[in-house]
């Protein structure tokens, strides 16, 4: 069709698309504020690392789960691959953990590519169901292939080389590495919010038939989103391994861990920039607080809180903030 001169007059047209620089500004502000956490809460560093690390992994999960609408309940696979690849290369080959983490990313991407190519041809709940199966199979293999993984006894990291002169077992160092990772994931999400690729993913999430009708190849784009999500999660997994120092397949590949990542994103709000961060803060911080104030009953109260959130903020707590601001 011939192009006619643009006569965009209505202000709504401009408001109708996400203005990019703004959200990126917010990302920087939030990260800058978080950077003060170790200074302010000197005695709660372990809690801080856990929150920021899980926020990063939940945001990575959200690239696939929230932005692309493909519910994964098997992301622990990538946490585990990240942690194990890093640790085994350290222990068996003396490779530095940061290179090990990169190798973990490579392994995770390969696994995600194969897994995605098979399962994304199916629509509906199949991907979610298959993701549980894949994660469980990985856990069982890791548990039984003792010669490679150390089996159920787990692996422990006795010592690590310094990273740019920093002690990787220091909670403070771990905090800032986790923060960089979170930053990476949130910047990726903010790019998805406004880029061509991001709109492709959102269109697939909203309606796959309609997405195809406007020229989007859903299988390819879902696989690409899965690769990005797996790579970021794997990085988080490597750091998680260092943070724990000792881990076993039962924890690293557990369904529980997969569900937690998904839950954080849901509680905070899927497909939003800061939803997974809010969710991680609430679930990790909340369970600590509950453990102190409701000893023995903390899981009960935890469950109750989740039900309340689902009832009163089905789109996530992050959206409540937006709603309140609008009023």
């Amino acid at each position, binding site marked *: 069709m011939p192009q*006619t001169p643009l*006569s965009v*007059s209505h202000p709504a*047209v401009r408001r*109708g698309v996400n203005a990019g620089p703004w959200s990126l500004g917010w990302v920087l502000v939030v990260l800058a504020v978080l950077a003060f956490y170790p200074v302010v809460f000197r005695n709660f560093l372990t809690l801080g690392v856990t929150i920021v690390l899980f926020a990063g992994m939940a945001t990575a999960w959200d690239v696939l789960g929230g932005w692309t609408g493909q519910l994964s309940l098997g992301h622990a696979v990538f946490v585990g691959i990240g942690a194990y690849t890093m640790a085994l290369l350290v222990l068996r080959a003396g490779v530095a953990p940061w290179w090990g983490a990169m190798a973990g990313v490579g392994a995770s991407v390969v696994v995600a590519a194969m897994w995605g190519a098979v399962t994304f041809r199916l629509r509906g709940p199949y991907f979610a169901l298959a993701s549980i199966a894949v994660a469980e199979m990985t856990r069982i293999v890791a548990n039984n292939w003792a010669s490679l993984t150390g089996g159920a006894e787990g692996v422990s990291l006795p010592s690590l080389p310094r990273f740019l002169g920093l002690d990787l077992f220091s909670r403070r160092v771990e905090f800032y590495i986790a923060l960089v990772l979170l930053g990476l994931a949130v910047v990726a999400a903010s790019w998805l919010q406004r880029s061509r690729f991001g709109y492709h993913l959102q269109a697939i999430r909203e309606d796959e038939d309609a997405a195809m009708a406007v*020229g989007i190849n*859903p299988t390819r784009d879902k696989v690409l989103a899965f690769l990005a999500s797996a790579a970021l999660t794997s990085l988080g997994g490597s750091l998680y391994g260092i943070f724990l120092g000792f881990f076993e397949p039962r924890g690293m590949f557990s369904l529980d861990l997969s569900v937690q990542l998904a839950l954080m994103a849901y509680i905070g709000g899927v497909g939003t920039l800061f939803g997974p961060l809010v969710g991680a803060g609430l679930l990790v911080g909340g369970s600590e607080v509950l453990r102190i104030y409701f000893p023995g009953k903390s899981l009960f109260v935890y469950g109750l809180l989740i039900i309340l959130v689902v009832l009163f903020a089905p789109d996530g707590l992050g959206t409540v903030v937006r709603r309140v601001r609008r009023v």
Partner: protein
Amino acid sequence: MSEVLRTEQLRKLFGGLVAVNDVEFAVAEGEIVGLIGPNGAGKTTFFNLVSGAMRVSSGRIFFQGREITHAPAYQRAELGIGRTFQIMKPFPRLTVMENLLVGAYLRHPNRHAAVRWAAEVIEMMGLAEFASASARSLTTAGRKRLEVARALTLSPTLLLLDEVVAGLNPVEAEGTVELIRRIRDRGATIIMVEHVMRVIMGLSDRIVVLANGSNIAEGTPQQVATNPDVITAYLGTHEGRDARPQATWSPGTPAGENHSARDDTGPTLALRRVQAAYGDVQVLWDVSLEVRPGELVALIGANGAGKTTTLRTVARLLRVRDGEVQFGTNRLDQMSSHDVVNLGVAMVPEGRQLFNQMTVEENLLTGSSLARTRTLRRTNLDRVYTLFPLLRERRRQEASTLSGGEQQMLAIGRGLMSAPRLLMLDEPSLGLAPTIVEEVFRVVQDIRREGITVLLVEQNVQQALRIADRAYVIESGRIVLEGPGPELLQSAEVRRAYLGI
């Protein structure tokens, strides 16, 4: 003029059903082709095959001379085939502007250019003021517009429009018609499926008629509208005119004479200036009609005219926005649906709506679950079995194992189990073979002979008018014609209501 689209022996099977049957079809550049045909003719399936949303069973599709038979939908979009969905599929949580941006990115990978193009389309479609609203907040009319707009962002060479006018009010419809002309003038080729005949007859350069999956006629709007095959496809067959059973009742008998022996003091169903709507789409406008005790009244009209909606307002399955529905001295519009049934108004829904996993007898029993009829269960069951001996034979069988015709009988039987004084039948012959259709119409006559008042909605107009005492013709939600059935049978007005000429 060069050829934009051609199909060869295109065929689509759903199980044993041939939805699209060896359709040969070609469209030249710049044409507007109307694709029409009765319900279930295969129009939307044809669109799905051309756009790639469904795989063909056999045959070939060419787009601008290039074979695309097995190309995935997104490749066809890239090549220049844009489409709308009859069941609208916006990206609900994205804004209207973002909905268009997704499509705009296909031709303009650069963000600035994409936003510019999306903005241009949004202005042209008159959606600018909704740009920042989420797509799910749009009204039906707005969503239909968004469907067209999103297809336009692809700068399509070929645009497939599936029912973009039906359901709009006259002003909106006029706007959309104007828009379609403008889209064509900008160089697009258009194939449109539309139930609003006036629109399609006025817009199309050429019309192709599908019936039961086959291309039965093709030509200018005038040629098609006067083609006897087309008229038969829309209005039903003449079959069975001489095969009518029992001579106890003849269609020519004036209504009054016919039920003189019956209880004329029974309640009369009266609709007065009824308005009804689905959400913001008004479907019925000032509908008034009357069904007197013992009468068999037919309500006929084109797809989407408001026939089923009329029945739904009587059964209180849909709220009456304004006006009255009276049955005897009771105001049905102020009751709940089960009270309506308790008063003796039963409805046999379109598509039968049986409980498939339940047996025949269980299905029947669900029809008498109200207090008034529960005590009469045995008697009613016997009556139904007498009327349909076959159902007695199969009473332990699961409903899903019955044939289409038997299922229809069961649905009617279930309606009768509530011992109704008024029975409403919605498209009882839909999807049935001609001989079975004959039987259904015989049964309808048997029922009214038992003294039950019948309000019949039918797509087989010829048959319905032949057995009806009186009939109403509904067009775009308004009653446009009323008269004795056999008389309407000869009426050119009826043909106009269906074919828009």
